[in-house]
């Protein structure tokens, strides 16, 4: 039994050192990915306006009807995304064959949508999924890291259950062990569910459809070779195809139809409306929403809806939460906690806290390994380990790198060519140059202090540059109720303060570190 325990610890440590840093990167950018909708509003100058009207009071047909008579805009399968859903404050028309059209809901002006050309939020989200590193290669590596992290969590759980640990002792080794254990156990369950869904997404669902080829062939008796062919149509059903009557008819106003849908199913928080065969006598409209009283069962891919006829508003179909295929609800249940779609800010903030706690727990785990390395030398010679410097580069260097990406978003002119390329390049260069500081400075405390001070200054500059260059100061933002944009600024300031406090508390030399370890 003792041998098994020793082997367990050894395996946990080895896998932790190999995958720990990538694991940290995924978790760190996951926090930005939770708030990506707010960042996507913050980064666009076209979305800097105050929303004066409520979602229910927007005269949608007044803005949209003229556009729908334009022959260049397709009338079938056209999606109108209502403002405030997904925290975008514009009314958006989208269809797969046209460019997105964004409309100001206050006065019906067409906004010049920047699209993904300046996508900072999209970039930070992609660093979480692994797409920038040669797409499928990155997806696979990050998926394997997710599998390894499930492995680490399970081995860690077995250790905590079988081996008796004591929380006593004031050395750095004991303290980092204590906090590594505590933080990981507290947030174990939500993180495990999130990583199961993440590993499934990256290894099988999204990237490598070949990985699931064998099981698909066995289960479907060689009819299908990739999973979308076998279950794609039940998991993501496409709308029914019906024939046009071919006669022009006047439709009811869109806001009247919206009002009717709200009377039919008042529990829903409506997100978007899809128009089918519009301006034809067979026209239908599907209004999809999210039922907040059933989290985990709807909101991500399973959206309850009300389908109405375009001419007179009579009901065609009402879809409730549990009307969907069991497979869809199951898929929804597994992935809900990973995506928290359409949830309020409070839920997203709580999830971010959980992820941040687990991230710090991971950092303590790596610290624990390094303290064990120090123990061998026991203050005889000064300690310099390449792995400690590499982990400092990746863990602390990520802070100034994200900060400079936020700074450049409002520093570069918006009509600049290859803007996102420069932004990404400077982002990675900053990250590397933090490595220069971490490796070149002999005293690791001083190096960490320097990196954190740089990070705090850059995080402080980012909202100031935004306030100056956008023309929307903090007081103006608050008075116009533009809280999603102000919230990102406050979050950046909070990160700046966090970096500064971290750098300030950290002692100047390694021998003084003991005071801090005693206090926690």
């Amino acid at each position, binding site marked *: 039994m003792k*041998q*098994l325990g*020793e*082997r*367990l610890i*050894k*395996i946990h440590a*080895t896998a932790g050192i190999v995958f720990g840093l990538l694991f940290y990167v995924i978790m760190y950018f996951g926090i930005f990915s939770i708030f990506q909708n707010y960042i996507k509003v913050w980064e666009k100058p076209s979305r800097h306006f105050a929303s004066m009207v409520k979602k229910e009071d927007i005269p949608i047909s007044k803005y949209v009807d003229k556009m729908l008579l334009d022959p260049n805009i397709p009338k079938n399968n056209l999606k109108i995304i209502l403002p405030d859903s997904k925290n975008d404050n514009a009314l958006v028309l989208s269809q797969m064959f046209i460019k997105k059209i964004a409309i100001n809901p206050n006065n019906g002006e067409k906004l010049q949508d920047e699209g993904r050309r300046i996508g900072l939020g999209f970039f930070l989200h992609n660093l979480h999924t692994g797409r920038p590193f040669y797409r499928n290669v990155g997806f696979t590596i990050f*998926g394997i890291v*997710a*599998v*390894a992290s*499930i*492995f680490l969590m*399970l*081995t860690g759980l*077995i250790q905590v259950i079988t081996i008796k640990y004591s929380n006593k002792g004031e050395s750095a080794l004991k303290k980092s062990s204590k906090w590594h254990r505590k933080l990981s156990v507290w947030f174990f369950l939500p993180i495990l569910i999130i990583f*199961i*869904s993440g*590993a*499934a997404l990256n*290894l*099988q*669902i999204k990237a490598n459809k070949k990985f*699931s080829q*064998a*099981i*698909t062939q*066995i*289960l*479907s008796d060689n*009819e*299908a070779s990739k*999973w979308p062919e*076998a*279950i794609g149509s*039940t*998991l993501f059903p496409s709308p029914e195809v019906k024939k046009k009557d071919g006669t022009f008819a006047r439709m009811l106003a869109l806001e009247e139809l919206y009002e009717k849908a709200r009377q039919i199913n008042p529990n829903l928080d409506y997100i978007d409306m899809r128009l089918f065969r519009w301006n034809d006598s067979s026209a239908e409209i599907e209004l999809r929403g999210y039922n907040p009283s059933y989290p985990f069962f709807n909101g991500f891919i399973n959206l309850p809806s009300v389908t109405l006829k375009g001419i007179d508003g009579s009901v065609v179909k009402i879809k409730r939460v549990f009307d969907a295929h069991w*497979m869809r609800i*199951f*898929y929804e249940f*597994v992935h809900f906690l990973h995506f928290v779609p359409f949830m309020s800010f409070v839920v997203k903030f709580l999830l971010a806290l959980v992820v941040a706690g687990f991230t710090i727990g991971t950092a303590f785990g790596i610290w624990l390994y390094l303290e064990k390395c120090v123990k061998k030398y026991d203050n005889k010679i000064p300690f310099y380990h390449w792995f400690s410097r590499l982990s400092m580069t990746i863990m602390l260097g990520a802070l100034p790198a994200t900060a400079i990406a936020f700074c450049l978003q409002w520093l570069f002119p918006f009509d600049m060519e290859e803007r996102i390329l420069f932004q990404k390049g400077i982002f990675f260069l900053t990250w590397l140059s933090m490595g220069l500081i971490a490796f070149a400075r002999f005293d690791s405390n001083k190096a960490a202090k320097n990196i954190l001070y740089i990070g705090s200054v850059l995080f402080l500059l980012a909202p100031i540059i935004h306030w100056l260059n956008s023309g929307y100061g903090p007081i103006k933002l608050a008075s116009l109720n533009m809280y999603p944009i102000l919230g990102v600024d406050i979050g950046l300031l909070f990160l700046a303060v966090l970096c500064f406090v971290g750098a300030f508390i950290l002692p100047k030399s390694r021998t003084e570190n003991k005071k801090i370890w005693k206090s926690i």
Partner: protein
Amino acid sequence: MIFAIKKYLKEFNCTHKNANKIGWVRSICAILGGLFISYFGLIIILKVIFDASKDALIIPLLFNSFTWPCVTIWIFLSRSSKVVFLRTFIPSIFIGMVLIFIIG
């Protein structure tokens, strides 16, 4: 010659005293064997025992990545090299035979 084989078998059978070394064979057996067993074991349970249709594909699609580390831990934590080989190859050969039976 026979003495050498006997000595080797004895080493093979006894519990390792030095648990601080993991060993390459053990890790390769655990990771690749765990992948094979979890990947095909789940589908065989669904196909042979429950006689599932293709709708059940969603279960291995979502949970393969969870059963892989579980089987890997089970193989990793065996007492001796013999147990590692037994835990890897008996399920693998059994699953392989069932697979040939299903496909062929």
